[in-house]
């Protein structure tokens, strides 16, 4: 059995009707990822309200848990949270027989609807709550003992693992041990008459306790103390017919079951420090957290009755990135295992760690955005089946940023990756301030990454409100360029497309409306909902920058890059190099030269001379920043000189720039 659906109405930030929260969950693991305030904790708390948790920490409804309806300017009257359970085993169906819903499809599910009714101001009473079964809560009220079977295990975000694992009444360790069959089944009881030749290793735990107590009693120190206590103190305090006597022992009270529990509750579990095997020295908070989670999983795996749901808020807490990856990997492998009673453990984690997110399969991920859930499972996104294995390979920590962003720019290479944030900054659209992440797909799969945030069925599931700009090249050179950038030798004729193996394209390959057609094709590859593709207006980033008015800056950047080694050793030569390059560019930019020709000559530095685009982008970024800082270039001028597609892409993920008068 697993929690397959959660519907929350009027709880905290979630409204009702269209604004209610609906989440479909997987068997196995579900990761709720999203930025702060997206509703992750409210979701976990909602589940805790309905199911309760095994730590016995009772989560009580608070007056401000009732949703505040902004339109009505009032708090709602009723909270309703419905959990649907699917995949019931025969034992599950038996246990909840009177509460089940038999579906027309032949399936059987259990609905548990929890409602709370708001008490009005001035009444200091408990908020009345109720658990009902059936679709829409039409069925009978769930018996509290039936409800107890649904209790989940919950690990809070900033947990004190050490305290949770320490000895004491009802300790987690004692519970785990009590659920271990061999604890009771192994060993024999202690018989003081058969002391001779007794091998203590043959004793049961209670036997060991009795054996220990037996020897404690003959220990001189204990014996003396007991005698003094009895003879010197208790005896004078006693009545004649009611002698007070003391007995000193370890866990000496009650029947065998009670004493076993007392022993178990005295036990501690300690994570050995490196090189230690006997618990003399423990480890730090982070490692203990792993131990804690390991214990909880062990407990869940061992229990025979009950619903094995583990909820972990921010498993990354206290763990360094590599440990986070190990943990996630372990959890994902653990949920696949079937327990003795046919159940599989279900795990729900919340996280805002790109580390963890990068390790979780997309299928198991649910993006929480603006109080809505967007499962990224197959069929829910516009990703194709082949996109999933691709993304699982290439979705690394850096790219996993996109799950937590308020806007995403997907770029094909490092030049855009470096340059776009600077350009945006200079235009007054600081990407960090807007929560925009930039993802460099390194040449492959631009669309695939974007489509993660595109819904297959936006009408039914809604749209993810995260704007995505895909920035890509047009890859069509002006007709003059092939000879300038070295695609053709000087004097070589322009080869016809048919029959040639050339990869590059020039404008003359696209007569009439074909060029516009190509652009539309590229744009259409990923677009729709909040996703938009921005294609270079002309050819490629550097060419377009030169074409639109930043030719000199790009030329300078390329020149500095070309002399990067020298400049690293002797930074003082920078000004001289800039002056030299400026002169070079002035010579190149003779009046009357077609802009296509000039821009192609600038671009030849990269294409023909092999200057690094990435390093140039660094130089260009700093040159432009300097120019704006020193007033050499005004923001308005910069904006005029930028290719339109870049400005549009930035506006799309931030907000429109002021209209130019």
């Amino acid at each position: 059995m697993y929690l397959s659906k959660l519907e929350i109405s009027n709880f905290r930030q979630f409204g009702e009707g269209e604004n209610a929260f609906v989440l479909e969950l997987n068997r196995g693991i579900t990761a709720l990822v999203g930025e702060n305030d997206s509703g992750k904790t409210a979701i976990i708390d909602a589940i805790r309200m309905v199911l309760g948790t095994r730590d016995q920490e009772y989560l009580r409804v608070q007056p401000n848990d009732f949703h505040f309806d902004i339109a009505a300017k009032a708090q709602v009257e009723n909270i309703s949270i419905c959990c649907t359970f699917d995949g019931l085993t025969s034992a599950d169906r038996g246990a909840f027989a009177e509460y089940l819903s038999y579906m027309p499809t032949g399936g059987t599910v259990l609905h548990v609807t929890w409602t709370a009714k708001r008490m009005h101001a001035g009444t200091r009473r408990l908020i009345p709550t109720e658990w009902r079964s059936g679709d829409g809560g039409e069925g009978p009220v769930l018996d509290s003992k039936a409800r107890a079977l649904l209790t989940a295990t919950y690990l809070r975000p900033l947990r004190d693992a050490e305290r949770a694992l320490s000895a004491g009444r009802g300790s987690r360790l004692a519970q785990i041990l009590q659920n271990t069959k061999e604890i009771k089944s192994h060993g024999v009881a202690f018989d003081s008459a058969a002391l001779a030749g007794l091998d203590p290793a043959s004793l049961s735990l209670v036997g060991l306790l009795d054996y220990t107590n037996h020897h404690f009693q003959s220990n001189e120190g204990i014996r003396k103390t007991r005698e003094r206590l009895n003879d010197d103190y208790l005896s004078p305090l006693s009545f004649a017919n009611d002698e007070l006597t003391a007995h000193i022992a370890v866990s000496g009270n009650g029947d065998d079951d009670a004493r076993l529990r007392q022993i178990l509750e005295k036990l501690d579990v300690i994570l050995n420090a490196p090189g230690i095997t006997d618990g003399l020295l423990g480890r730090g908070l982070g490692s203990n957290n792993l131990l804690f989670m390991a214990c909880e999983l062990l407990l869940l795996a061992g229990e025979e009755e009950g619903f094995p749901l583990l909820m972990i808020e921010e498993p990354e807490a206290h763990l360094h990135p590599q440990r986070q990856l190990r943990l996630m990997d372990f959890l994902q492998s653990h949920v696949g295992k079937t327990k003795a009673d046919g159940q599989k453990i279900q795990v729900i984690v919340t996280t805002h760690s790109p580390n963890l997110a990068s390790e979780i399969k997309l299928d198991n991920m649910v993006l929480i955005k603006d109080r809505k859930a967007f499962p990224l499972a197959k069929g829910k996104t516009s990703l194709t089946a082949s996109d999933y294995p691709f993304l699982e390979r290439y979705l690394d920590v850096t790219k996993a940023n996109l799950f937590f962003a308020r806007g995403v720019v997907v770029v094909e290479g490092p030049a855009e990756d470096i340059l776009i944030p600077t350009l945006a900054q200079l235009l007054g659209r600081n990407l960090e301030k807007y929560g925009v992440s930039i993802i460099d797909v390194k040449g492959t799969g631009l669309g695939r990454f974007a489509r993660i945030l595109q819904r297959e069925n936006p009408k039914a599931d809604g749209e993810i409100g995260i704007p995505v700009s895909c920035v890509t090249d047009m890859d069509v050179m002006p007709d003059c360029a092939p000879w300038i950038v070295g695609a053709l030798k000087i004097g070589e004729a322009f080869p016809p497309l048919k029959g040639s193996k050339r990869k590059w394209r020039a404008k003359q390959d696209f007569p009439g409306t074909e060029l516009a057609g190509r652009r539309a094709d590229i744009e259409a590859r990923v677009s729709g909902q909040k996703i938009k593709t921005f294609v270079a207006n002309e050819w490629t980033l550097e060419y377009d920058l030169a074409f639109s008015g930043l030719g000199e800056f790009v030329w300078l950047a390329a020149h500095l890059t070309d002399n990067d080694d020298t400049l690293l050793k002797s930074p003082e030569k920078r000004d001289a190099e800039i002056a030299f390059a400026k002169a070079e560019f002035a010579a190149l930019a003779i009046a009357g030269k077609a802009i296509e020709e000039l821009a192609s000559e600038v671009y030849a530095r990269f294409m023909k001379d092999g200057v690094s685009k990435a390093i140039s982008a660094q130089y260009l970024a700093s040159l432009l920043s300097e120019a704006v800082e020193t007033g050499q270039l005004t923001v308005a001028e910069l904006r005029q000189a930028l290719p339109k597609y870049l400005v549009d892409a930035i506006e799309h993920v931030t907000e429109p720039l002021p209209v130019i008068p």
Partner: protein
Amino acid sequence: MFVLPTVTEGDVDWVCRVMGLPPTAFSGPDGKDPRMTVIQRMDTIDVEACPGSGKTTLLVAKLAILARRWPSLRSGMCVLSHTNAARDEIARGLSSCAEGAMLMGYPHFVGTIHGFANEFLALPYLRSKGNPIKVIDSEVAIEHRWKKAPYKKKLYLNQQNNGDGRSFLRYDEEDFSGDKMRSRWKPHTETFKLIQEICKSSSEEGYFCYDELFVWARKLIAERPDLAHDMRHRFPLVFMDEVQDNDEEQSSLLSQVFMDGDNPSVRQRFGDSNQAIYQRSGVTNGAETDRFPGPKIVRVDLPNSFRFGTVIAGLADPFAVTPQGLVGLGPNNPRPPAIFLFDDASVQSVLPRYCKYLVEVFSANELRSGEFTAVAGVHKEGEDDKIPRWMGHYVPAYNPDIVHREPAPESFSQYVMAGWRESDRLRRTAPLVNAVAHAMLELLRLEDYEGTSERVKNPHQVILSITTDEKASFNYKRLLDFFVRKAGSITPELWNTKLARAIEAVAGKLRGASIATPEAKAFLSWVVAAGKVSEVSISASSNVYQYPANEPQVSVRLGSIHSVKGETHTSTLVLESYYRHHYLSTLKPWLLGISSGGAKQGVLLQRGLRLHYVAMSRPSHLLCLALRSDALTESDRLVLKGRGWVLLECPPH
């Protein structure tokens, strides 16, 4: 994996202690009592328990022990009885200790077969189909349907069934056809289709007769092949009480759920096949499926009765179809059993003569505290050809209609009075609170309240949930408080002058509009419930015969044999009656000690035997019969005297 607990001797000692029983209550003084076997066995068995065998005590004790040792949180015991009264008796027994009380909740089930079929099968099925469930009450459902029939059709239906057209409006198949309509019309006829449609729409609106839920329970079983397996996970151990009364429908349903095929539950049935007399009208035989006791099932006999001594045991035993060899361990101070002889002219003297005899053989104290009855196999009137045919021949004022279970209250005051009587008996307020809440719901329903009866497990909570007006619920609770404190002293004057108006005001507040319909107003007026015994010797409203009429020394409750099933009396008079033949005359060979048992006899005779076995095994101290004088020859009389009977002739009246 789940393993049923075992019952040790220590457990039995414990249960004797907490139930306040002697330590040998189950093991017997000689340690050989078969009760001990029953309490310890954890496999499928059938227990034949004789009258007065203390079967309920035994069952309660066993349940209490198992509840204490029960290892599972989600599998439970299923304890099925026939009637709510039997369920309540078990519940009362269990509530005497904390361990037993746990059995009354999840994951266990203690209730009637109907309750079980509804809760676990029919209601989940209907709910899943989105079918509302408003009322499960045959009377209400049929009235709901009757209103749907066009006027002319009603006349026609009435005409087709001696003025009772309503009884066509029940179904027993999922196509909403019923036995009664099928036997009268062909399925393609317009009337048949109309009745079907009425039943269908009424059910779809949420109105059901009790037995109709079985249709939907069966439907769920048919649709879900895994269901039996699931239910056996939930209830690995099933107890059934009074199992001889199961009809075919109940028996086959329970058998499908718990027993048929692989991995059956462990089932322990308790019953007495010799007392199988409860049959629904039209049904002449008990269950064919899974008969009790089962031929291939381990059977334990409990022939020891604590109700009566050896005298009555010896007289009643031959009347068992399969005599167990009753052992009377009850009171050892029996009074001489008597046979009252009468003819057409003296038939009405039988009761006075019986009472006279009672006054002779019982002390004044015993007469006051004892339970004295007179029962007849037939208690409904027929043609006056064969005297005595029915109870009315002995006591003309006898009213057969009130012997049935207490009729459903028809007014608010009747609800209150019935609830108060029950509360007074149990010394708990719950019955009265529930009765008032039920009455209030009924009152609101007569207006426009559309609640489901499914929620009416706790009507008080339903009332409180109807309104958010604090004042309204406060007033309602104040009304309740009044009834709890003062229900015993309500007079018709007080009701009509004050209470009716107070209730009306509370109801008005609850629904937020005043009470308006004439039906609701009528419901509020005082309706005289079963009154007090008046001057005449038999009260028409209670069927209690008092003697002597002017200064009663003894009260004799009159009823059918069916109505006294399971009861214990101080003295029982079994009256001759007629169904195809005179029962007792026909059974003379069994009286005379010539015949014993009747396994090979015909159906009719077996029926007579069972009926009179039940009757004759009721009394603890005195068994009496009334026979036609002309049924016995001189030699018969000698034999009867030899068997210990006192023969008394009744004078003409």
